[in-house]
């Protein structure tokens, strides 16, 4: 990996975008098992209907894992000091998630603050987050 250097990074620089692909029912089943989040609302359509929904919907943390992949694709994981997100909108089965990041601010101690978003195929923001990373 060509690691970004603090001295070279500018506010407004963008991270290489991550296309996380389409969230389908298999994606949700695999994430349910792998994550240990067995909330049936994400995998059991009967349960989802009992909650008044038309269908299951994706775990917010699945898309947050994509945001984490975006950041670890840019810097080694040990550089990440914090990672935060708000879950702004629900991700539905069939949505295609893309993650983007921008350098918001250069801080002291070789740290930068990143703005992170996960959007669907229509550009609707699903997650709006931030990370602070310490660069080489």
């Amino acid at each position, binding site marked *: 990996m060509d690691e970004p250097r603090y001295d070279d990074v500018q506010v407004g620089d963008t991270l290489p975008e991550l296309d996380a692909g389409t969230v389908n029912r298999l994606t949700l089943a695999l994430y349910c098992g*792998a994550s240990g989040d067995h909330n049936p609302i994400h995998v059991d359509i009967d349960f989802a209907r009992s909650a008044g929904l038309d269908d299951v919907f994706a775990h917010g943390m699945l898309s947050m894992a994509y945001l984490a992949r975006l950041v670890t694709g840019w810097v080694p994981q040990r550089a990440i000091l914090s990672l935060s997100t708000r879950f702004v909108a629900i991700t539905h089965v069939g949505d295609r998630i893309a993650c983007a990041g921008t350098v918001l601010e250069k801080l002291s101690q070789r740290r930068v603050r990143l703005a992170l978003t996960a959007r669907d195929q229509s550009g609707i923001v699903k997650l709006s987050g931030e990370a602070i990373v310490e660069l080489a």
Partner: protein
Amino acid sequence: MIDRRHIGHVLPAFTVPVEAGRLRFFAKATGNTDPIYTDEAAARDAGHLNLPVPPTFLFCLEMDQPNPAALRELLGIDYRSLLHGEQHFRYHALAHAGDRLRFEPRVADIYDRKGGALEFVVRETRVTNQDGALVADLTCVTVVRHG
């Protein structure tokens, strides 16, 4: 309304092992093809002692507690009314496969918005490793929808 006396409530602490197989499954489930998350040799080449725990997997390990419903039962809330509102991680040290992580969760805050139609439960969890070193602080904000 969720009883505000639960603010400050300390939930039972628990310890969970970090298993390499779980990390590989998580990498598959999240489409992560970076070999350092699945291949010990690649992880070692990148300076890790073993497969690293990816940034959000600490949240998953917190679900491996003896009673994952402990907080919902304490507050009397149903899965159907819940949404994950926010998630925050502050990292202090990496964790790896083979570590044993201790989770210490507490209810940091409960508040409402929109005239009580939405309530927010803030859970803060401190994570330390088998050497007592601080690994991360997690903050989970759960939204409870009424009506």
